[in-house]
Each structure stands twice: as structure tokens, then as C-alpha cells.
């Protein structure tokens, strides 16, 4: 399967020649794979330098004259470092932008916490016109980006090198709608990103224990599909959320908000608690932070036995 970042480059190459408003700005990231766009759309590609706050701020001027900026670099640098620029220059001024990050939460597992990002989804969600998309496969990115890139929103596309490996039909990918991966009656697992793989593996183990698991996958965090999660929880009354995001504000918190009024709900959250110190592979850091199918299995067993 193609990497998400490659899909980003291909999608821009597809859209750029058709829409002369598209302007791409990167902070010395993905420069090589974006050369086809740069050649196909001369004068609309900028590897602007290592200056993330100014890159975002300057993009607001580009947006002000009617162009469509697509701004790209590693997640903590574009969102956390440049957050005031996003908040004021796009939020307060009501200007549109597409922010496309790479690196997910800890794809750069060999580089340490400076390159991790667990709060970006929450930060953009707090902005009124903030839209948050976490595509877990290339087709999701292509479909969702193509659908919404020219809307007057602060669009945030959070890309990861990890894919969940599930093949969706293009027509089943709808902006703002969750996807029911499998039906179940005992427990609801809500999941984002490549963690879907872990959810599915856990569900297999649980099945042999006689536990029927419903899995709901979200590629869009904001606007959030409250309906699909609510319907599921009215049936199962048990929720486990699985996310590579800060435990303080992410999929769990929005799922709980969606379940207000549902009596007797039992829940468990699997999320990132603190800086994940240390190095290794992506899988190593998943284990270290308790993001694996064993943890999902244990969480489900815990609430089923309550």
C-alpha cells in the first residue's frame, strides 16, 4: 500500500493543474516527493525555509488574496509551535487554510519527544472553524482532501506513516461520518488512525472469549459523528476508546460528550499519558505507551466483567 505522504503528493499533483488557486508551502519536509507538483504548477510551490510561525502567518496573506494555501511540515512544528498564528491569522481573521502534517504522534520514534505530537487534534478542534481529519489510509486522504480543501475552514489533515491496512470503498468514505467496521452487541470500540489494526486484532481474541465487539472507526474527528457512537452505546453500554492522542482531550472526551444521557455506561480509555521518553521503532513506542491489542483486550475484559 502506498504511504500516506505519497498520496498527499499525488493528490496535489491531481488537483493543482485543475485549480490554479492551490499554493503549496513546506518547511523543508517532503520536498522531493512534491517536485512533480512544483513542475506541473510553476510558481505555486515554495520550500520556504525553517520558520514555521512565519510560514503559517504568511499563508494567511496568501489566503487573503483568494489563493488556497496548503501548508505542510511535521506535526508539532506546524501546530504546536505555530498555534498562535493558526488561531489569530486564520481563526480570528476567518480565513481558510489547509494544514497537512506528517509524523503522526510518534512516527519519528528514533528522534525523541521533540518530534512527537499528541495535542494537535485537540488544539485545532478548539477553533470554531477547525476541521480535523486523521486519514488512516491513502484513499481516505485523497477522498477527504479532494472533498473539502476549498471550503472556508481551517482544515487539518494529520498524516502518519502508519496505515491501518483496511481497504475501504471510496464511496464509503464520507466527510464527518464514522465507519462501522464490524457489528457487535457487547462492547463498542471507538478508534482513530492506524490503531484500527490493534482494535481488530483485539476483537478477534475477544470473539474466541465469546465477547461480541462493535468497532467504529473515525477518520473525521471534527465535525464528529455523534450519532454513530451514540447508537452503538445505546446498544452495548460499554465503551473502549483507542487513540494515539493525549488522554486529556481527544477521542475519549468527544465520545463521552456524545453519550450524555446514556445510563449505566462503562468505559475505558487507551491513550497517551505523558511524554514518551526513549527511542526505538513506532511499534516499540506503541508498546511503551500501552497502545497495543493486548491493552485493548484487557480493557474490554475489565468493563465486561464489571
Amino acid at each position: 500500500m502506498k504511504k500516506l505522504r505519497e498520496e498527499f503528493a499525488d493528490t496535489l499533483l491531481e488537483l493543482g493543474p485543475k485549480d490554479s488557486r492551490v499554493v503549496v508551502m513546506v518547511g523543508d519536509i517532503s520536498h522531493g516527493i512534491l517536485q512533480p507538483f512544483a513542475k506541473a504548477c510553476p510558481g505555486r510551490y515554495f520550500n520556504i525555509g525553517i520558520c514555521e510561525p512565519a510560514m503559517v502567518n504568511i499563508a494567511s496573506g496568501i489566503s487573503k488574496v483568494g489563493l488556497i494555501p496548503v501548508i505542510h511540515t511535521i506535526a508539532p512544528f506546524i501546530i504546536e509551535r505555530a498555534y498562535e498564528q493558526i488561531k489569530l491569522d486564520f481563526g480570528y481573521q476567518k480565513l481558510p487554510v489547509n494544514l497537512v502534517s506528517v509524523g503522526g504522534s510518534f512516527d519519528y520514534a528514533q528522534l525523541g519527544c521533540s518530534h512527537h505530537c499528541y495535542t494537535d487534534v485537540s488544539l485545532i478542534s478548539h477553533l470554531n472553524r477547525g476541521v480535523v481529519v486523521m486519514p488512516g489510509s491513502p484513499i481516505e486522504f485523497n477522498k477527504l482532501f479532494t472533498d473539502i480543501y476549498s471550503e472556508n475552514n481551517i482544515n487539518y489533515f494529520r498524516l502518519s506513516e502508519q496505515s491501518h491496512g483496511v481497504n475501504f470503498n471510496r464511496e464509503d468514505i464520507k466527510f464527518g461520518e464514522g465507519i462501522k467496521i464490524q457489528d457487535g452487541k457487547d462492547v463498542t470500540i471507538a478508534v482513530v488512525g492506524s490503531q484500527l489494526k490493534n482494535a481488530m486484532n483485539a476483537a478477534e481474541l475477544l470473539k474466541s472469549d465469546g465477547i461480541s465487539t462493535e468497532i467504529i472507526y473515525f477518520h473525521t474527528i471534527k465535525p464528529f459523528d455523534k450519532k454513530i457512537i451514540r447508537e452503538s452505546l445505546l446498544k452495548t453500554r460499554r465503551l473502549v476508546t483507542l487513540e494515539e492522542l493525549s488522554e486529556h482531550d481527544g477521542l475519549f472526551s468527544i465520545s463521552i460528550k456524545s453519550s450524555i444521557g446514556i445510563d449505566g455506561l462503562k468505559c475505558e480509555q487507551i491513550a497517551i499519558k505523558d511524554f514518551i521518553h526513549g527511542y526505538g521503532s513506532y511499534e516499540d513506542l506503541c508498546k511503551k505507551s500501552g497502545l497495543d491489542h493486548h491493552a485493548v483486550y484487557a480493557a474490554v475484559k475489565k468493563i465486561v466483567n464489571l
Partner: protein
Amino acid sequence: MNSELRIKILEMVKRSGEGHIPSSFSIVDIIEYLYSSVLKYDCLKPKWSERDYFILSKGHGAGALYAVLHAKGVLKNDDIINYGTPAGILGGHPDSTIVPGAEASTGSLGHGFPTAVGIALGNKILGLSNKVFALLGDGECHEGTIWEAANIATNQELRNICAIVDWNGSAAQLMPRDDLPEKWKAFGWETFLMDGHSKDDFEKVFALVLNSKSNAPKAIIAKTIKGKGVSFMEGHGKWHHRVPTDEEMDHAILELKNEK
């Protein structure tokens, strides 16, 4: 010079109890000259697609911008009267989504200038000839985004942008090593020195800027006096965010009227 505008600024701030008088006095002459003699601008059509842009990056000088926009007919009498009230659209920093003629919402320092660079870059991409002028505070030049954006403008050869720095000595109070002309020159900007309160100098310097054949962006370092026009406000840091008493108000207006 521009006593009526200064009196208008005083009255707005006095009425509402909030504002930055000296920061507006140091720049009102420049802004008035821009809208009268430099900018390609139609006051009846503030969104005119062929307009030159003026961006007040030091947003706390908003009183000066409002006074000039009012004098030019972009803002109404009621807008000035309702400054800082729930009924109004004007406040201590400009909000571009509600104030006609305000091209950027500024207040947190270091945001308006990069936006101006982005407009200049966007216009270059679109092949448009609109010019962009941004007015920065000297204290604002302590912000990192100013220099990130200045570097980008030089490397993108944005000859369509002109930064005007209100060099009123505020920055030097905090960081005495304050050689702004050399800094802008070092960043690759074609740099001009200007008396921020001399119409003769305005004519001379803006003519040089507009006639320059260089591909470099332009920087005008405008030597100004904070609080210019009212002797007891001039240069005094304590007046930065102060509202005058009734007596001080009378003295200030008298002095301004006599200067006319």
C-alpha cells in the same frame, strides 16, 4: 501637522478609557500621507481588488488608523463615537472582520507584517501589481516572526512590499542595541531613513521607494517621536497606555490647536 487627527484620537481614547495615544501619535502623520498621497485606494470601495494594501502591524496604533480612515470617509462618525463600546466596531486593536478598511486583525505583535509578506507573495503568484505597505513598531521588531518573514520576502524577491518601521525609541528602552537600519539592510531589504514627521521627507523617500528598480523589498526606518504633538506626552514611556485627565485633555487640545 494633523492636529485634527490627533484630537480625534485623544477624544476616542478619553471617551472609552482605553487606548494607546503616544503609539498613535508617532504614526498618524505617516498613515495620513499614505492614504492621501501614496496608496492606490478608493475610500468608497475598501475591498477594491486593485487597491494597494496598508497593514497596521503594530495594532495598538489603531487610533491613528481609525482617525485617518474616518477622515477619508471609510469610517462613519458613529464608528468613532462608539469606539470601545458594545455598540461599536472599533476597539484598542483592529478587527479586520468588522472594520472596513482594516486589512488585518493585529494586536499580538509580529502577525501583521508576515501577513503583508503573504499578500505580497500571493499577488506576485497571481501576477497582480498591487503594492503592500506594512507599518511595524520598533518594539514589535523584537518578535521572531518579523525576521523570519523579512528573510522570506528577500529570498522571494518581493519588490512589491514596503515595510515602514516606527522607530520611536520604545525598543531601545528594553534592548539598547537597536540599530534597525543596519538590521533591515543586513536582511537584504533596500533600506531608507525617513523623518516620520516631515512631509518634505515623506515626498522624497516615498518617491525613491516607488521609483526603485531593485527587486529587493523596501524598508523605511521612520524616525519618530512617541506622543508627537503634545509636549508632555512626547517620548514618555509612562504615557504608553495612559488616559489623560480632564485637565491634561484640555492642555493637550490647546497645544494641538495652537500648533495648527
